[in-house]
């Protein structure tokens, strides 16, 4: 009996929730979160090429993590009869035709025999029919060339590489982002092709430690997924946990980023997203540079970024492009917008129904005069208008382009005016709901916007029931729940609670110099401290 009750109440169950402890590798942060700078040293990039082809190949495989990174193409061939060579490039970045026609074919046709030392220059001058070629002994040059989409030809016994311009990206046009529009930022968006998406990211992340690990999802459909991250920067515990969770997916559903998020997240009932869904390659690349993981799914024009914090949801793609003072003002306006959007209707209801003395005489008179002939009770009027606003918004989203804009105008102007004329709603409430709607659009993330919309209705109900007491207690519970939530082990209010060594302010945009390296809140290996 005791056992049954215990099982029913789920008491005594071990606390198994995954979390990245802030103490994991760097020790405890000091009280004021200052710390000694620590920077991991990159290895393997400096120096010159070996004269042995096998050594060079091994070195490249190590650099590009070739075992898991299937992007790297290593094409061995022979120049003339016996000179072994290796053409190296990245899949999707280099044009296959150029490599075949202007590198491999002339190499196979070459009959002359020259000494090993003279071969690179001779091969470039007499065989390669390419416009832009370069000879280099530097490993760094070779790595840069490969990540840029060029092909490096390594020749056995020479210690020198020929870097040929074979850059040729995917030909499918990449469109502009539809939902995450920016003024200062780039205007590219992900497509449905996972290879294209990887290429789009790789064009931004020109470094050898950027790894795109392809894997199949579980279930019979075997959708192709890619985990993009910086090897040596990302927290390996986090990476392993994400892989473990991806392995648990076993479904026949068509998988998208949104569905995968729901399948691998911790808190299913939380309205707030636990993964950032972005259609912008630059935003995903920025996140990867910060030490996070980007999840790409075949057939989905979005990338999922994880883990996230409340700051990530309130950050727009072009925040870092703006100058410091302007950026700060924009952020403050955005936060005010979000606060107004969430709390204004409930606060107004609480004051109007329970604490009218808190409103000044002028506002009281205006509100009372505007409600003179309205037959609905105030709370019902407010909730009705909030729902109408959601209706207009949903309708505007779902119908095709030009009609969508028209619906916004019709809903906003005509319906509002008609409702006021018909004494269904009062002008003051209409203004509050309009302000709320405007504020809601300042929240950059769509999922967070929707979450805020429903939280607002909940707050309105409790403001009606218990005035400011209801709002306070619901606000407290919501804050506590958000504080208990972890997005893939990272608490939602990081870096404020828990405090981490590097704290990027939610309101004040800091100097760009401070953002030289990755975030430290997910305990990245090469972190910004």
């Amino acid at each position: 009996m005791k056992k049954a009750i215990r099982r029913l109440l789920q008491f005594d169950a071990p606390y198994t929730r995954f979390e990245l402890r802030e103490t994991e590798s760097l020790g405890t942060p000091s009280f004021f979160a200052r710390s000694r700078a620590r920077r991991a040293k990159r290895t393997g990039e400096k120096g010159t090429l070996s004269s042995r082809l096998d050594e060079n190949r091994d070195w490249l495989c190590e650099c590009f993590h070739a075992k898991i990174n299937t992007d790297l193409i290593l094409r061995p061939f022979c120049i003339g009869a016996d000179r072994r060579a290796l053409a190296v490039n990245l899949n999707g970045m280099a044009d296959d035709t150029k490599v075949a026609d202007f590198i491999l074919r002339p190499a196979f046709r070459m009959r002359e025999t020259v000494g090993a030392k003279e071969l690179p220059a001779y091969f470039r001058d007499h065989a390669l029919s390419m416009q832009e070629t370069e000879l280099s002994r530097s490993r760094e040059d070779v790595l840069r060339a490969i990540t840029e989409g060029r092909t490096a030809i390594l020749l056995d016994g020479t210690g020198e590489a020929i870097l040929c311009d074979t850059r040729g990206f995917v030909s499918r046009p990449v469109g502009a982002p539809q939902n995450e529009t920016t003024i200062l930022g780039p205007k590219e968006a992900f497509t449905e092709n996972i290879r294209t998406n990887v290429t789009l990211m790789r064009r931004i992340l020109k470094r050898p430690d950027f790894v795109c690990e392809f894997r199949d999802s579980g279930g019979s459909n075997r959708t192709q997924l890619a985990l993009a991250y910086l090897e040596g920067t990302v927290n390996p515990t986090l990476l392993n946990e994400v892989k473990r969770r991806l392995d648990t997916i076993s479904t026949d559903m068509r998988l998208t980023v949104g569905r995968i998020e729901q399948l691998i997240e911790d808190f299913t009932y939380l309205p707030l997203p636990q993964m950032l869904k972005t259609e912008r390659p630059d935003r995903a690349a920025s996140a990867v540079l910060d030490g996070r993981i980007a999840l790409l799914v075949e057939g989905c024009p979005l990338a999922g970024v994880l883990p996230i914090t409340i700051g990530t949801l309130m950050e727009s793609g072009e925040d870092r492009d703006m100058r410091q003072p302007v950026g700060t003002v924009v952020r403050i306006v955005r936060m005010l917008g979000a606060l107004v959007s969430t709390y204004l209707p409930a606060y107004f209801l609480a004051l109007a129904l329970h604490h009218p003395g808190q409103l000044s005489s002028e506002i009281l008179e205006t509100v009372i005069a505007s409600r003179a002939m309205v037959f609905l009770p105030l709370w019902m009027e407010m909730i009705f208008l909030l729902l109408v606003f959601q209706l207009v918004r949903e309708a505007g989203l779902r119908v095709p382009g030009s009609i969508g804009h028209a619906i916004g105008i019709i809903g906003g102007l005509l319906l509002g005016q008609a409702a006021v004329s018909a004494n269904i709603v009062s002008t003051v409430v209409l203004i509050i709901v309009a302000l709320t709607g405007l504020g809601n659009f300042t929240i950059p993330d769509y999922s967070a916007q929707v979450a805020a919309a429903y939280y607002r209705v909940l707050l309105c109900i409790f403001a009606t029931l218990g005035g400011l007491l209801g709002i306070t207690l619901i606000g407290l519970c919501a804050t506590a729940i958000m504080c208990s939530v972890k997005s893939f082990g990272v608490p939602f209010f990081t870096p404020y609670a828990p405090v981490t060594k590097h704290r990027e302010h939610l309101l004040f945009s800091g100097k760009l110099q401070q953002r030289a390296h990755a975030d430290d809140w997910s305990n990245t290996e090469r972190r910004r401290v």
Partner: protein
Amino acid sequence: MRRIGMILFCLTLLCSCMQSKNIDEYAYVLNVGVERGTTMPYLVTLVVSSPGGSEETKVRNEVISAEAMSFSEAYETLNAAYPSRLSFARASLLAIGEDLARSGEQTEFLNFAFGKPDLWPNLRVVIAKEPIRDVFEGWISEADPSLRRIKTAVGDLEKSSGITPDTGYSMYLEAVSGAGFDAMLAYAGTNEYTLTEDLPGGEAYPIVGGSLLVESLLNTSVAGSAVFDGDRMVGVLDGRHTMETLMVTGAFRRGELAFRLPDGYTIRVTLYRTHAPKIRIDGQQASVTVYLEADPYAPQTIAMESETLKAYLEAQLETELDAVLKALQHVNSDAMGFGRYAVKRFYSAADWEAYDWKADYRTMRVVFEVNVMLSHSPHDPETE
């Protein structure tokens, strides 16, 4: 388990729904007045703001009154008579009838009143010389229908002219609770009556310095002050003497006084406080030093040097302060607040409470010293 928990959670909250009313179901009381009634002990008068039926209609202010045995009875009577429920949440001014204030019965009544409705202790309090209905109606005009700024105006009067004190209900309560000073409340009356009052000492003088000759929308004026001994009103000070009393309490900021010079000319002086007054009490002796800056203006040339004028103003103010204090001592009112300095000698509440400060105050000798700093010479043509 979770579902059951959620259901219980929601049910719990639904049980605890607070009582609420729509904002437009209330009528908001702006001013509250209480005075002695004719058939019953209290006559309660309220100014109620009731917005009109549509957005175009202006807000109307109505004055309603009821006689009753207590405040709650009057409140219920008025509530029953008025179509909307009365809310005191925005009440900003409390007027007490002079007859009631002189009897000292208002404190008990007010203590009860402040316990019940949504009435806030940050009201400004005035003593009404005439029937409160007349005073309230004198304030209502087409120019400012909501009466909302009257409270601010009374407060500003203290800062800008010094002819009336800015005393709130909590300050009044503090004075009544024995905090070391007596209350001094603003004095309001309508212009239709002759505003004169005899202060003990025999001299009669007008409450308001002049009388309004222009036809004005507002017929009620606030000037001078009613002084209290504990919770009982004992006398009235005119605007000039109120200003001088405020110079000693430290509440004076700026004011204008006229002085008749020995050669028969009248000079107008705008006074500003430069430092807080210094008060020292040593047994039965006290010394008060007041620091002022004076900006004199004479419409005609006067044959007086700056130093002479300074000395004259200082002597004049010291004499007047002495006269005001004597009058206040006579009625046993410590409106200047000497008790606030007397209390500093005590290191135990019991000792202070056992000590009869008022007995010593009545016979206390005070030396006033006024330091006037002339901002410019009276000959200076730039003045005004």
